[in-house]
């Protein structure tokens, strides 16, 4: 598949899942926590995906349960992108002490496995959504900072940056106008990759019971709640799994497709 087609397919997947999650609550035939059928009831004309372990409508819960994972994954990734890029660029541009300190902090953070770090914080401080977003983004910052630092190192040596410095432009202008536009491609690819990780981590957290609290509808949570009935009523698990997979594959495809089509353009510019 060519880069631009990957990008288009990826974006189509993301948009489809986002549309479903955003418009879903309005379309749901039942309230997500209403007990409307038999436990693990099979799909029927009234309930296309059947009923869950408490007899709630799976279709309604699927429609209502996507919002948290989408806003949380996007905000965690964007937050990590912003902070990580600024840290990495500052490190590469300033060099010396500043660089050492930033690299040291990212090294320490990287030493923690992401999920353990998030679980630790959430289990100690509570499962507030904003706290989860913050912790997930902290877990992602080192990778972004490392990437931004590495790419910036190469750009800083370019003579147009020296020229800007020689003119006496203020440092923030050099960071934002001279460096940042040249970092855009790798950073956007990183954003796509982070989205994929964030989805996996957030649904993992819900599955482990550290995410959104029941009885609220949430895709990750639904997988956990209904796994006992996987053989009896697989749709209660499969539906959220498929949607999470679609979203994750979409972000991944978009990231890779964007990177590949961009690389080809850069090659032509040669």
């Amino acid at each position, binding site marked *: 598949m060519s880069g631009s087609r990957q990008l288009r397919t990826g974006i189509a997947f993301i948009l489809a899942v986002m549309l479903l999650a955003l418009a879903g609550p309005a379309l749901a035939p039942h309230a997500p926590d209403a007990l409307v059928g038999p436990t693990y009831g099979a799909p029927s004309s009234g309930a296309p995906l059947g009923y869950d372990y408490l007899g709630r409508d799976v279709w309604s819960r699927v429609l209502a349960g996507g919002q948290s994972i989408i806003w949380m994954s996007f905000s965690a990734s964007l937050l990590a992108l912003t902070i990580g890029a600024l840290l990495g660029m500052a490190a590469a541009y300033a060099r010396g002490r500043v660089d050492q300190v930033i690299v040291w902090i990212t090294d320490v953070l990287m030493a923690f496995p992401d999920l353990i770090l998030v679980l630790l914080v959430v289990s100690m401080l509570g499962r507030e959504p904003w706290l989860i977003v913050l912790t997930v983004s902290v877990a992602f910052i080192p990778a972004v900072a490392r990437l931004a630092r590495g790419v910036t190192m190469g750009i800083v040596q*370019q*003579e*147009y940056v*020296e*020229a800007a*410095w*020689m*003119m*006496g*432009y203020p440092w923030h202008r050099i960071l934002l*106008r*001279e460096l940042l*536009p*040249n970092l*855009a491609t790798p950073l956007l690819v990183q954003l796509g990759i982070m989205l994929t990780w964030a989805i996996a981590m957030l649904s993992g957290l819900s599955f482990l019971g550290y995410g959104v609290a029941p009885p609220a509808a949430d895709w990750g949570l639904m997988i956990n709640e209904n796994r006992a009935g996987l053989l009896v009523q697989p749709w209660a698990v499969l539906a959220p799994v498929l949607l999470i997979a679609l979203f994750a594959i979409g972000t991944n495809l978009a990231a890779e497709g964007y990177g590949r089509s961009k690389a080809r353009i850069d090659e032509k*510019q040669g």
Partner: protein
Amino acid sequence: MNIVTFPSSATALLEVRDLHVHLADGTPIVSGISLSVAPGQILGLVGESGSGKSTIGSALLGHVRPGARIVNGSILVEGVDVLSLSGKALQQARGKLIAHVPQDPAATLNPMMRIGGHLHELLEVHEPTLSKAERGERIAAVLSDVGLSASNEFLHRFPHQLSGGQQQRILLALAFLLKPRLIVLDEPTTALDVSTQAQVIQTIASLCKMRQVAAVYVSHDLDIVRHLADTVTVLYAGQIVESASRDTLFAAPAHPYSRGLLAAAPDIFTRHQLAPIPGQAPAPADRPMGCSFGPRCASATPACAAAPPPAKDVAPLHRVACFHPSSGPLVRPEAQVRSGLSASPILLEVNDLSASYGDAPIFTGLRLALPSGRCSALVGESGSGKTTLARALAGLGQHVEGSMRFDGGPLPIDNWQRSMEQRRRIQYIFQNPYRALNPRRTIGQTLTAVIRHFFGLGPKDAERRAAAVLQRVALPSGHLHRYPRDLSGGERQRVAIARALACEPDVLICDEITSALDVSVQAAILDLLRSLQGDGLTVLFVTHDLAVVRAIADNVLVLRHGRIIEQGEVDDVLDAPKENYTRQLMASSRHDAA
């Protein structure tokens, strides 16, 4: 199809007939190439970037870069048709029959392999029957031919322990080791200093004669070809426009492009007017229907645009593809020496300046004075410290100490300590136009940013000024909305100059600003700088090229090992150098044996 060829002689060792190389989409890169070279002869294949000269060079080894294809033609080397070979036979032919010497020795030699390893490996692959002792003898013989030691100590060195000249000699040794019949040299001396260059060229010339090898020397450097080649073929837009013996071509070139190239090249002996060729060479996909050079040619007629001119003999062994070939010698009008400059006050002054790289001093106690309104050339070979000095003046130096004065006041060493006014008045132009402009910002954004920064103008006024500055460097104002990738190297360098001019500077420091450019483009840039000097600009022109010095500078400073060993008026220094080293540089630039 215009085919230029020498009448094929029975003695030719290399015989190329009607070679065509196309891209996958059918765009021709080179077309209708015919060449022949006799044993012991060197053919100079001359062209500017994009002319297809390297494509032909590698096609002679039966190789084209990915995406390209040899669609037609034959290449006979001693009767062997190279293009009909494949697999093992082609592998054998490469190296044994035809050898290739690439441009950049540092990138070609494996940094993890010792010199001896490189040489032994080649023999092991191509002549597996030789014993180790026999290999050693062959290697010792070829090393002495290229002027290198064959001692064990030398063979045990790694490539990085050799100088650039020695590395290039190793590549020559590798090329000659298997006693090939044809050798293709792709700009092998471009990466070397003039004095090293002169020696390597001597070696190439004598080896080809001694071993009766036919050589194709691919180069953009007319001066080297003039001193090395027996016959010269000039390429333009993938086609041969002229072929002649060396003496004929340089004394009386017949094709307008050949004449243009020679008129654009600066000369170390005389200060002639550099005549840039207008326009720029077409990209392979945009080549015109008729004569490729037609759109840039002063003597073009409607016939030139209708069909490509066929090649014809204008004299024995002199073929030209042109409807209006010139006859008679090329006359280059002398340029006037600028007068009335003797009593200029000093604008920028350096006292007791020292700089170091780590613990190694680059220069110490350096003194330098730039007279106002003049163009001073700073000449030196690599390692002389010329770029370090130029950067120090611009405030870009690291580990620099000493004192500088500018326009009567002190000038801080560090850029960030300089006043806004000092920064504005001293501008620096970088060597490589491809790295000097931000690829993600339009030309207009780059220029207006500078103008708004220094003069506090609004966006409308800044853009008007940016357009005016572009006009000063002879670029249309439409370029304001373009990105650097849409521009050629020469245009980018003009934009870089425009960025400096936008600051309305008093001092312009130019660091080898034409060394990455083609001859005809260089002429235009030098022409531009000359005209800017008329406005009273003080210029420091850093270069390794004495011919450029003659063309552009009023006075010259010769830098060696971090010391200025000679300085004075350009004509005084170049006509009667006092220092031995300056004399050597002059001799090397003429490619005399140093």
